[in-house]
């Protein structure tokens, strides 16, 4: 099956792929800006920014957005700070140690969030943190740490330690080696890990729902509530408000990665 011999199949598949990839995003944009879009009209009667205005004029939604941002940033920073040394220590370990750490990390990712949430709910409640932003942050850390440990385990398994050894031979202390050698070389994986950590928390529903107990509002929970109460336009605007920061974070991490590619490669 050579692509060169299948120009029609390739063109048709590209067309289908474009429609498939863009249709859901297009419907979100159209619905969020639609004015007077009643069944069976296939296109709205007009467009305005009413749903977006309603979304951000509501102080409760703004609070939910702020909570989501705080949780995303705190989770990204903390999970990266913990997963980096963990991945490095595990990669330096023997094969059974690496496998044990990888298994634990994958278990944190593989456990359904509802399952993890039900268990963590009781833990957080017993610590007196049920229904608090800090309790929700602790619960978001578990899957984020799982993902990022797998990332750094992969990075350090292929890591060339000769530069660090050379720096040590030249008299660099452990902190100097981190500051001058390791961190500049790790800029790309650290940037990607921060982006991934943010996204894991940003899109989280089950853990927030269970551990937050309805007292902690985040943007994904608000979008679901709007949808369930029939506010389709606000829900579409909220869904896009969820998507745009995710796109920005991913785009920024890719640009940062591209800018550091020459250093790391």
């Amino acid at each position, binding site marked *: 099956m050579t692509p060169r011999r299948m120009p029609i199949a390739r063109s048709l*598949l590209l067309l289908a792929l474009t429609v498939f990839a863009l249709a859901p995003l297009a419907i979100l944009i159209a619905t969020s800006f639609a004015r007077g879009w009643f069944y069976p009209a296939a296109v709205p009667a007009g467009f305005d920014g009413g749903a977006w205005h309603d979304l951000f004029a509501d102080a409760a939604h703004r609070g939910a957005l702020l909570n989501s941002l705080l949780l995303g940033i705190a989770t990204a920073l903390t999970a990266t700070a913990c997963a980096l040394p963990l991945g490095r220590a595990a990669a330096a370990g023997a094969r059974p140690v690496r496998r044990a750490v990888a298994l634990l990390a994958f278990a944190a990712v593989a456990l359904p969030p509802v*399952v993890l949430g039900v268990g963590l709910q009781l833990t957080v409640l017993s610590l007196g943190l049920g229904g608090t932003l800090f309790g929700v942050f602790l619960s978001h850390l578990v899957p984020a740490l799982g993902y990022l440990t797998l990332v750094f385990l992969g990075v350090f398994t292929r890591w060339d330690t000769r530069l660090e050894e050379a720096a040590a031979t030249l008299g660099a202390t452990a902190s100097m080696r981190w500051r001058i050698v390791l961190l500049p070389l790790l800029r790309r994986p650290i940037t990607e890990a921060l982006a991934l950590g943010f996204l894991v928390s940003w899109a989280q529903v089950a853990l927030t729902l269970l551990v937050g107990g309805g007292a902690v509002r985040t943007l994904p929970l608000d979008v679901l509530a709007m949808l369930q109460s029939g506010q389709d336009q606000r829900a579409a605007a909220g869904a896009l408000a969820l998507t745009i920061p995710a796109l920005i974070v991913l785009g920024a991490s890719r640009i940062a990665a591209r800018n550091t590619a020459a250093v790391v490669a």
Partner: protein
Amino acid sequence: MNASSRHARTVVVPLLMAGTLLGVPILVSIGYLVAGALGWVGNTSSGAVGRMLTDTAVWRSVMLSLWIATAGTAIALIGALMIALLFGRDRRLDRLAQRVAALPLPVPTVATAVAVLLLLSQSGWLSRVAAQMHLITTPAQFPALVYDPWAIGVIVAVVWKELPFLLLVALSLQSLRGSALIDAARTLGATPWQATRTITLPLLLRGMAPSIVAVFVFVLGSLELPLVLAPSSPLALPMLIQERRQALGADSHADAYAIALIATALALSTALLHEKLRSDA
């Protein structure tokens, strides 16, 4: 560096860190689930495990969740392989196709669910187009693609969300492996289809196995998509746990913990399979 400090650095430190940061929350969570299912904590009654193992509603939920995860992962995989094989080169059209296919990657699951609902529901955009084309006159005449017994809406959302991830894995595997084996097979007289069937696909599938398992297990445990798009009878497994957890009564809470234990067993057995595939790959 003496043997004991090396042992500490390579064995004790990573195990201690992983145990504290990952093992403790997981074990505490599972410990609470076991205790809750046995009626020891959290205002629960005993006997839930036996009750849930013989409850047909639970097994129907397990079957629905397995169906969604299997069908969604399989269709996303087939799509990713087709695109990787047809658009896997580094030409302009190929790069365009790869970028288009990767678009849904950063879209949060909740946003995906909202978009699919707006497209596929009986008053959604496809239904409106059908009405404009005089194929239907009322929303009820449009086939149920969400809240339907086959969970078509959930599966469409899974494919939209997971195809880009599997495609990226397939493309990176293709670029890493190069074309030496294919060239050798072609030199030895294999047709393009034979080379694809006997070399490219098996190599891709072997390399992608851990990612395929990861997608499967992610879909199996996803709450957001079933919450918005799945039928209410039977409920998908994460929704059944959530429903029993929110219900009043000690029996319901214990049932939620027991069902969560069944879901844990499914997820952990998949994690073990993932680890085996990862070490074999």
